[in-house]
């Protein structure tokens, strides 16, 4: 078989369209089409200055404030105090770096501000077929559009700033096919948690994941973003879904997307990115969509995920000693005990937000559960972008959250990264739509249970983890 006729996967096509040169040692130089930077990128800008260099392509670089943006008191001057001064310093630093190098900048009060991984796609800056990077591991989110998107560290951010390129080694390819139909009430988050639990927290290290199968095709772009977002939680730097009609319908008409004939020409190229039918993968995993239940995490890594009707595992019954040690430690940290039904875990707070689950569809799903109900615990809702916030307010979703007793905040990473002052207190337990349940992730000593927006809303109403489907039944009864 000649090289020309070898069947190609989606990733093969993305790779081939970005490789500029190959080094003898096997590294390839690839072109970066979009580079998002945020407040945490300051180390990289310092490196650029230290070397006396400049930003090669400010036109392809976009600075958006998200990690340190306060969610409260927006639209008014920031109150004094040391904590706010720190946040202001981080945001001002990003603005100053953007200004110095001529980079477009959406600061806290810009109408297009929001979490980079929500803003990029919603503005049509991220497009199918592009290579997208950011100094943030959840950059994999953009892969939902058929973009090759991955997170990088500060040195690589600096490299992209200075050259608009990166050195990459071709990763192995894993296809996760989710076939069949999801049961009612099951969302992309349940799929994502199921995939992570199945692969393990390092199960996809060194791989890109292409998500395929009828259940993935049936997802909206927003659902695909949730799925691709959590690829890094199983170790894959990058998750992908092949562009299709759903993708084109999402991209069409967005502010930075090609318009008119240019869109049609681009669309034909985007559809052609889909992998050839006989493309070969290094690994294949098949998941039955019908078997996916509402899923929650009980432990301290996203792989510690189980169906809501399960119980906290018993380390004494595990044959793998290392895993048993982790389970023991996680149960201790989380303040649980073996054999306890997950649905008996009482919570102190809820959080709805983050690049995983704060798009309009997510807010609608949570609001549908909360409408006409009260939350038994306090909580915060932080929309994924300022545009999502305006849309939600237009639909009256903000009223539903506030009537339920939750706080409606501004957009940012908020209590997912817990860098902007939105934190839990030590020992507090939170049902959260975010992506990481690591020790201390939502504040020192915090305890996080990951789940879908509908499941967080249901947990708010019940004051404990609960199957959202049982709540719906109660309401009818």
């Amino acid at each position, binding site marked *: 078989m000649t090289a020309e006729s070898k069947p190609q996967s989606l990733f093969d096509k993305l790779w081939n369209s970005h490789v500029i040169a190959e080094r003898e040692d096997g590294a390839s130089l690839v072109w970066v089409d979009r580079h998002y930077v945020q407040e945490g990128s300051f180390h990289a800008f310092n490196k650029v200055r230290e070397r006396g260099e400049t930003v090669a392509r400010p036109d392809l670089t976009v600075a958006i404030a998200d990690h340190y943006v306060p969610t409260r008191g927006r639209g008014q001057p920031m109150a004094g105090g040391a904590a706010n001064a720190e946040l202001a310093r981080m945001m001002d630093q990003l603005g100053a770096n953007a200004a110095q190098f001529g980079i477009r900048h959406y600061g806290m009060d810009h109408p297009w501000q929001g979490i980079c991984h929500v803003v990029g796609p919603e503005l049509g800056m991220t497009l199918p077929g592009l290579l997208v990077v950011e100094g943030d591991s959840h950059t994999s989110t953009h892969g939902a559009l058929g973009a090759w998107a991955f997170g*990088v*560290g500060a040195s690589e951010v600096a490299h992209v700033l200075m050259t608009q390129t990166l050195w990459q080694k071709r990763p192995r390819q894993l296809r996760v096919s989710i076939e069949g139909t999801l049961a009612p009430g099951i969302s992309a988050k349940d799929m994502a948690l199921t995939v992570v639990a199945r692969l393990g*927290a390092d199960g996809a290290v060194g791989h890109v994941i292409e998500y395929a199968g009828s259940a993935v095709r049936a997802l909206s772009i927003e659902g695909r973003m949730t799925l691709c977002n959590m690829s*890094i939680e199983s170790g894959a730097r990058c998750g992908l879904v092949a562009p299709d009609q759903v993708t084109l319908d999402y991209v069409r008409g967005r502010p930075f997307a090609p318009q008119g004939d240019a869109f049609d020409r*681009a669309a034909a190229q985007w559809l052609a990115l889909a992998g050839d039918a006989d493309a070969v993968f290094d690994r294949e995993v098949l998941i039955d969509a019908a078997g996916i239940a509402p899923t929650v995490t009980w432990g301290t890594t996203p792989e510690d995920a189980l169906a809501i009707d399960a119980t906290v595992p018993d380390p004494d019954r595990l044959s793998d000693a290392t895993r048993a040690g982790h389970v023991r430690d996680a149960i201790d940290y989380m303040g649980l005990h073996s054999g306890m039904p997950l649905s008996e875990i009482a919570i102190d707070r809820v959080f709805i937000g983050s690049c995983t689950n704060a798009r309009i569809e997510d807010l609608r799903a949570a609001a549908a559960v909360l409408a006409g109900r009260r939350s038994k615990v306090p909580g915060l809702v932080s929309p994924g972008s300022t545009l999502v916030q305006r849309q939600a307010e237009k639909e009256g979703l903000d009223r539903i959250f506030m009537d339920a007793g939750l706080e409606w905040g501004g957009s940012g990473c908020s209590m997912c990264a817990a860098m902007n002052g939105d934190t839990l207190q030590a020992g507090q337990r939170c049902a959260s739509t975010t992506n990481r349940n690591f020790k201390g992730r939502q504040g020192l000593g915090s305890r996080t249970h990951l789940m879908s927006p509908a499941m967080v809303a249901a947990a708010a109403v019940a004051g404990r983890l609960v199957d959202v489907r049982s709540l719906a039944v109660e309401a009818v009864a």
Partner: protein
Amino acid sequence: MEAFVRVSSVACALPQINIDTDQVLPARFMKQPRTPPLGYAPYLFHDLRRGSDGSLDPAFALNDPGNSGAKFIAARRNFGSGSSREAAVYALVDAGIRCVIAPSHGDIFSANAVNNGLVPARVDEAEMETLLALLAPGGIQTEVDLETCTVSAAGKVFGFQIDPVWRLRLLNGWDDIDITHSFRPQIADWLQGDGLRRPWAQLAA
């Protein structure tokens, strides 16, 4: 970047899985500038090293006086998973760590490590258990040799794996930027063709 060929020191065993970068460097310290001479060293494993009252936990192996000055950390699988924060690598490097030995590391962590002269050495899981047991008493002199890709401790030798591209960079202390700048003509050529192939890839002003 400091080259790495052969380094000897005490190795500290942290026999846990999934030590994510939030544990290596908690988020609240990321606002800090990396000011010499200490840099991010004081924040390394901050919340694992300390009890709830803030005092150093003697049970945490890096607090063992015998492991003082350790240049190597040995851990179980998936070290450095999670957040892409390179500050986690800065904390390790600023504390004098030159190599993290584990059955697997987070992909982004590994790339960040190599960009800072820190070796992500991969040892087979069963071998790793033997190595961790050897290092468990603390204060065990260890040698990491990047030319032969071996770790030697207490008279035993363990092979490790590392991406050949990364090995070469670490051995030579090469900086990618200088290499990339030497490819400027190829980049310019490629861009000319790409403008025709993917006119839609530009970002409107």
